[in-house]
């Protein structure tokens, strides 16, 4: 037995396993901020990454342009046919917008959950091990980013800001498996149906909206948007379209499978949304139970 403990390698192995568990435990707990060495390392590599990713973005863009040229004729035809509708739609939207503003002025409620300030950012890296679906963007706390802000592309919501450094930040995509990641959503049908975006089916590549009350009328093809009720995300960001509805495992609620509007792969430019309306304080809530985003 004493000889067993004298074995240097075994002791090193045991010590390193203890250190491993301690480190994982340290990084898994709920952290509002990364420690400064981590931030320093991330900012430094972020700087190098942006040096590398800008020229490679340019090259990739060039090849994409070449591909686009091939489809130009067909696309042009299709776009022309849509253009006619667009003009009338645009004038309608203008009128509605003006109407809305006027009515809001009358009501004295000029800010809504819908208003946000977009902040463009470029993707400079992505987690290569692909268990944690994360991307790194080139804007940080100096640009006014904060934890938990919603991140969108032109086609819809893709995720939220997970951690912020001075010059770069990490965005957790919706496709990541994280039980803490819940987003309050609305299915837009004849009536508004509320649910929570929770989880991602990796094989089918569909998002799951859970906790929809049974008996709600949801059909295939209806749009799902953020509700803005979590207090963090603005209202009205597109999440996706309903593909399938099924009862959940206890049969009490419905679960809708959604095809996300945004592509979670091949992301180049994103927008971070900064909500304008004031977040409610803890004291504003009656029972402080409201959680999530």
């Amino acid at each position, binding site marked *: 037995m004493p000889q067993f403990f004298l074995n240097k390698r075994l002791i090193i192995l045991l010590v390193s396993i203890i250190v491993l568990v301690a480190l*994982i435990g340290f990084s898994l707990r709920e952290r509002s901020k990364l420690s400064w060495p981590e931030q320093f390392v991330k900012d430094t590599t972020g700087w190098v990454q942006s040096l590398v990713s800008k020229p490679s973005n340019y090259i990739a863009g060039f090849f994409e342009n070449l591909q686009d040229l091939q489809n130009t004729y067909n696309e042009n035809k299709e776009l022309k046919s849509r253009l006619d509708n667009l003009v009338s739609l645009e004038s309608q939207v203008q009128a509605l917008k003006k109407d809305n503003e006027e009515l809001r002025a009358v009501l004295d409620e000029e800010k809504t959950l819908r208003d946000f300030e977009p902040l463009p950012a470029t993707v400079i*890296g992505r987690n290569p*091990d692909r268990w944690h679906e*994360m991307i790194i963007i080139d804007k940080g706390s100096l640009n006014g980013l904060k934890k938990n802000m919603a991140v969108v592309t032109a086609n819809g919501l893709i995720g939220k800001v*997970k951690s912020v450094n001075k010059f770069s930040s990490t965005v957790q995509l919706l496709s990541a498996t994280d039980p803490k990641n819940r987003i309050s959503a609305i299915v837009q049908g004849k009536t508004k149906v509320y649910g929570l975006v929770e989880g991602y089916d*990796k094989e089918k590549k569909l998002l799951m909206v859970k906790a929809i009350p049974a008996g709600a009328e949801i059909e295939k093809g209806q749009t799902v948007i953020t509700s803005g009720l979590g207090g963090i995300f603005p209202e009205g960001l597109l999440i996706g379209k309903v593909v399938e509805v099924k009862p959940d495992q206890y049969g009490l609620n419905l679960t809708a499978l959604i095809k996300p509007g945004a592509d979670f792969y091949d992301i180049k430019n994103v927008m971070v949304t900064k909500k304008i309306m004031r977040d409610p304080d803890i004291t504003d809530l009656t029972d402080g139970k409201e959680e999530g985003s």
Partner: protein
Amino acid sequence: MKKFLLPLLFLFLFLLESLFVQYLPENVFGRNRILVPHFLFAAILFLTIFVGKKQGIIYAAIFGLLFDIVYVEIIGIYLFVYPFISYLVSKIMQILQTNMIIAFLVSIFGIALLEVGVYEMNHLIHVTNVDFMSFINLRFYPTLILNAAFIIIAGYPLKRLFEKHAEALRVE
């Protein structure tokens, strides 16, 4: 200049992995598969095989830590697995002869161990809820094929470089 060559090479591979995943389309070959690049780790294993155990483990620990901080945000997984597998590989190489084919096979074995090890750890801390069989089909085989292709392409230049480096070390 020569002193900085190896760290720069590894840093380049470190960034290359991220770029590779960023520009990879959703469906490769029209099928839903997850391809994971382990270019950096393949190079570290080659370093362990052709230069030495000590060098290999030091580089594995440094870049494992960097990988954890920058990409994963959970410190400890790669910091532990990279050096551990480098150590195992160096033990295996004590028995086997050092040549290109053996190096190729041992590196593939190391990458397979890495994938399974990281999967088990992530399963343990609930980062993933994929079951083992779909992990194998969805991720494990495609990843091995991708990295085998990388080693076939980059293996020979890496071997030449590391052998030169080992010689320079011996002269010193």
